[in-house]
């Protein structure tokens, strides 16, 4: 936070993350705005993951958390004016896609075994 403030003063004003052609109403978007959205998305994902029992919903919640993290990364990348964040997000997206394919296939398999999508039916790892 200190660093942020210091930087703001260095550049002579509030540092924004907006592109020059952004609508005027959004031109004062700061890093904090993005982080807030990201955190909200992440919290929603966690809550969903913990409360729902449906495998597909739970999976969707994990995707939500992924994207929350991705959003934060992009925001930071923009803030630091480098491409690290974006490149990471591309990695994350790629892996998420591959993983989605795998996970959904697994869900199908599980459904075939028990004829149900209830996650708590699977407790073989007990012990």
């Amino acid at each position, binding site marked *: 936070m200190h660093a942020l403030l210091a930087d703001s003063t260095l550049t002579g004003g509030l540092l924004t993350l907006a592109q020059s052609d952004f609508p005027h109403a959004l031109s004062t978007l700061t890093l904090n705005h993005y982080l807030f959205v990201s955190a909200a998305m992440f919290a929603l994902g*966690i809550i969903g*993951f*913990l409360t729902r029992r449906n495998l597909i919903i*739970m999976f969707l919640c994990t995707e939500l958390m992924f994207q929350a993290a991705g959003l934060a990364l992009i925001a930071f990348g923009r803030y630091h004016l480098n491409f690290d964040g974006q490149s990471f997000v591309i990695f994350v997206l790629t892996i998420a896609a591959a993983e989605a394919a795998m996970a959904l296939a697994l869900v199908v398999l599980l459904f075939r075994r028990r004829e149900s999508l209830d996650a*708590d039916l*699977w*407790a073989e790892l*007990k*012990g």
Partner: protein
Amino acid sequence: MGVSMTTIMDAILSAAVAQHGGEAAHAAVAASHGVTGPLWIGLIPLLPLLGVVLVTLLACFNEKSKMPAWISVGLLAVSFLLTLFAYLGWNGHDAIHLKLWDWIGLSWGDLRGQTLAAGFAFYFDGLSLLWMLFVTGLACLIGLYASEYMEHDAGLGYCRFFAAFNLFVFSMSCLVMGDNLLMLFLGWEGVGLCSYLLIGYFYKKKSAVDAGMKAFVVNRIGDLGLLMGMLLTFTTFGTLQYDALFNQIHTGLTAGGTPLSQTWQVWAIPLLLMGGAFGKSAQLFFYVWLPDAMEGPTPVSALIHAATMVTAGVYLVARMMPLYLADPAHIALTAVTWGGAITAFWSATIAVAQFDIKRIMGYSTISQLGYMFAGLGVLATTGGVFHVFTHAFFKATLFLSCGAVMHGFAGQLDMRKLSGLWSINGFRVVVIAMLIGCLNLSGFPFTGGYFSKDMIIAEAFVTPDSVIAGSSWAGWLLLLTAGMTAYYTFRVFFRVFVGPVVYEPGEDLHAHDDHEHADAHGHGHGHDDAHDHAAEHFHPHGPKWAINLVLTLLSVGCILSAGLYFLGDHHGWAGGMVHASSAVVDTHAVEGGEEALLFGQPPHEIMFYISAVFGFGGILLAAWFHGPKGIAGLLIGGRTTAAEVRMDPIAKALRPISTWAVRKWYVDEFYHLVLVTPLKIFAHLFHWFDKLIVDGLVNFFGATPRVSSDAIGESTQTGVLHDYALRMVAGIAVVLVVVVLVLF
């Protein structure tokens, strides 16, 4: 291999002109300090090494003939001749140097300021030449003797014997000829190895294996002293090379410029080196390995454990004499004197009570080595070194005679079971050789042993007590020992070699195949009822030509060695050799020119009479107590059987003490109790400590996660995905809270 082949070619070419070449060499390069020797000097140790290789090759081809012996003897003979050439070509005062290659060389520091340089290099001065002459000469003769003595084992055993034998000569040459302390150490450990291998030659016998190991380990303890002495020498003088070292000592300063007399190293180094010397030469606490070493074949006992290897300690002290003299308080020299004198006396007390003739010779070796050390200690380096030389001959003769007896009587060594060898066919040469050896050992007038021993004892009286504390007391102790020596030596002679013919074969009867012929010869000459069944068919066989020849040559050598006393200007030939070496002592400078008197006479003159009295006294005592009836018992003996002598009732009367002496004062048992057993207990303790505590801790740490997770897992591992997720989130939350609280 390649190296030795080329050098051998070199030798063949140069041997023909060796003498002239040697002279030319020293004439041309007679620099102020030493001359560079011709390359063929390097062959003296390398030829035996070649012998090792050749004999090993023969072993690979499973050679069953006596070939290994002939190769060894031949190579050793060439070695001896080369030594002789080197001696004849030597100019008599300068050391000959020859460096073959850098062995361990290392330099470091700014601009390579410090250097450890130990070349594989040789250094020939009077001392090393003297030693090399008898080492190679005796090795050659004893090799010839062994060719017959070891003939039962023709085959792998024979090869093993001669390989180790050659390796021994190589190592001993490196020890003696080495040009620095590390080279000496190379030979030092090498002879230790060969001693180990040869003592344990009869490796199926547990006592032999144990004896070999004992010899090696006891020697190693002494070696620690030598090693530390070497390192201390290096830190003090910055070099291990003899010439540089002696030059540095000569300046009276350490390499750092401190006056030597102000440092503690000046007495610590010689004491440490003395530890090594005492280990190798079986003195003081270290002597216990040498009697056991008699388990080895007799040629080995003769060469290694009597004539050569055990004198390595004497060589070391003689070589390092400048270091010993550098200490104004003569602490180390006093220790050497008293160590030697006490050992001489102590082992004589054991020798008088033993019945195994080879062990008696073993103890007498320890005792005589004690004389040599005492000689060096009281500044009689000439006497000490001369005694080494004469002792090498007469003790080799004695051992080889005992060996011939052993060979003929299937390993019998008990003097209570042997008598009258003079009257048994084929043993005449042995008895005569034995007599000559005994006369030398007991210091009979005009024998070599007489002159050399007198020089030592007389010098003990000459050297003032202010220089060597209690020097004259050591002299009296040595005189007393001389009497005891004469007694126990002739005790052996009178009991075994003359008198009525009685014998029992030893236990080796079944060990040697060639005794099968005894059956054909029917009963032996013995009439003792105690014969067991096998022994009834026993027939002693006298030695053949090789043993007889060697014994004859050695006896002649013994007689001639006395003549060396009359050669040259410096108290005999040995004195001349010592004079041209680092062992020379300027006695006047050390003693301050005090004129010592014994019974109002100069000790060196009156000693001839005193020691003759002690020698005769001992011989007469032996004759009275052990001599047989008749002329060979000098007309005062009264023994009629092998087992009973006049000494028996006296020994019985002195019962506890005489038993203790027979049991060697229980020193072995004492060491076992005080050193070996505690060490073994420690070893077992450590073993259990390692298993239970050290490894136990490791296992404990390894087991902790597993055990604890087993306990926790029961309640927490539900298998339900949501439970895990919840805990994970909760965990992260806790961490986050902690982080936030700590950081902000």
